[in-house]
């Protein structure tokens, strides 16, 4: 049972890393807490439902679609909301209020459009175009579960974890191997110094905001498979979970989110396995513990003081 909990925890953890990484990227660059993060995740889930149930395609096709749509939405929202916010006296406090309001609006509009009923997708739908490859790599039959360390896991969990790893690696490539990514890390390191160095901070922030929303939407595509179903109210829980993961890893360090996600995922599955009724408390308990014991997170920055 422990092996199952640990492997399932790792799969969920990789997925949770994707859930939180967009929130952390946005916070790292803009010092703004996007309280509507979970709502963009929820909208990504609805795109997956649409692609699968309405269009009849493999939900994997929703991944690039959700990413592109929400990067564009992010760019529009950024230029619409953020420059006015940054020009205010207390942008961090105002951002909390503004994005909380945005979260409520998104939830209300989604409820009006789709109702409050739970939406799910048959787990066999995810990755059906890759069924041949999966049988070749993991064996078994095309519709069955995947065997890992002698334990059986739903194929959708493995695909979600694999896509999450790819997405996180691409974020790494963006941040550490591209010119815009280096400028993004510079803004994350010291926003004021970025202005002083002549970096176009607005452009860097807009791209980061778009990518952050795009990553949330990709995570949302897999939410119906990882959590069974989604409703318009799903966004609130997703934001709290994301926040716990981000604080656990290191606020403002997107790649720390990967560690935070894995620690959270393993904790979540171990608690789910042995103390299932306590599992819903986990994000809050972890948030309190990390803030009391190591407020800078597991990968908190240490700077040499000259």
């Amino acid at each position, binding site marked *: 049972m422990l092996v199952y909990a640990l492997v399932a925890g790792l799969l969920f953890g990789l997925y949770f890393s994707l859930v939180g990484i967009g929130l952390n990227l946005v916070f790292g660059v803009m010092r703004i807490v996007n309280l509507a993060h979970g709502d963009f995740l929820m909208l990504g889930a609805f795109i997956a439902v649409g692609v699968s149930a309405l269009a009849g395609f493999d939900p994997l096709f929703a991944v690039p679609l959700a990413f592109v749509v929400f990067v564009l939405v992010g760019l529009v929202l950024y230029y619409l909301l953020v420059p006015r916010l940054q020009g205010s*006296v207390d942008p961090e406090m105002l951002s909390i209020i503004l994005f909380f309001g945005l979260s409520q609006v998104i939830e209300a509009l989604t409820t009006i459009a789709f109702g409050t009923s739970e939406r799910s997708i048959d787990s066999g739908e995810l990755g059906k175009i890759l069924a041949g490859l999966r049988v070749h790599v993991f064996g078994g039959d095309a519709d069955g579960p995947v065997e890992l360390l002698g334990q059986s896991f739903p194929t959708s969990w493995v695909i979600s974890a694999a896509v999450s790893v790819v997405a996180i690696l691409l974020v790494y490539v963006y941040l550490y191997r591209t*010119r815009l990514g*280096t*400028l993004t*890390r*510079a803004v*994350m*390191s*010291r926003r*004021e*110094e*970025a*202005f*002083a*160095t*002549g*970096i*176009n901070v607005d452009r860097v922030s807009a791209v980061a905001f778009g990518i952050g929303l795009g990553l949330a939407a990709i995570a949302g595509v897999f939410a119906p498979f990882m959590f069974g179903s989604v409703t318009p109210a799903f966004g609130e829980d997703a934001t709290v979970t994301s926040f716990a993961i981000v604080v656990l890893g290191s606020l403002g360090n997107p790649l720390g989110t990967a560690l935070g996600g894995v620690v959270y995922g393993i904790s979540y599955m171990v608690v789910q396995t042995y103390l299932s009724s306590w599992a819903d408390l986990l994000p809050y308990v972890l948030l309190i513990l990390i803030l009391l014991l190591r407020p800078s997170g597991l990968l908190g*920055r*240490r*700077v*040499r003081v*000259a």
Partner: protein
Amino acid sequence: MPPSASPASALLHADGIVAGYGTMQVLWGVDLDVRPGETVLLLGANGAGKTTFLKTLVGLIEARQGHIVLGGEEVTRTRSSDRMRRGMTYMSELAVFPDLSIEENIRIGAQALGHANPNARLDELYGLFPVLREKRRDAASSLSGGQRKMLGIAKALAAEPKLLVLDEPSAGLSPLFVKEVIRVLAGLRDRGLALLVAEQNIGFLEIATRVFVLEGGRIRFSGTVAEMTDNEALRRAYFGLK
């Protein structure tokens, strides 16, 4: 007192600059000019308005009144990145990006301004600051305070400026490192680079061509170093002499 350079002949000419934060006015009509190749020291105590003035010059704070002319062009309402592209780079007190490597810091100095060949520039700068070459893969946060200032100067030099504006390069440094910073700046001055240095450390007088003294957001004195040391009131205020 030497006359101010005309806007056309000065590399940088600031005229009647008024600036501040919100309802607080910090600068009350500040005039200053820097000619090609000279080193100007902006001397003032904490709170005199030195940083506000430099930030206004480089475009990080908007001037409420007055004019800034850079290389003969009015730049008062242009973005900071535009002023930097026109040849004025700025080293803030923070100086570097601590989470980035030393090489990334220098590359950003060059790339943010669209430098055509950052690799060649890197080699030149490593020649000027050999200690940075040795540690080029390390995070800037691992450097000592003095080394961070060197990196800050290298970052600001990466875009090949005509005028380097430095905000308190001695801040937080031991006297030994302050001497090292002065030595490096003297070397840049000798290469013909114009420098505008805001300081409260009078040790920087040894590299200055002219001095402007800022007090309470107003220029109280401008002239040569010799003229400043001849001024009894300033001698008392800054040299502790009677």
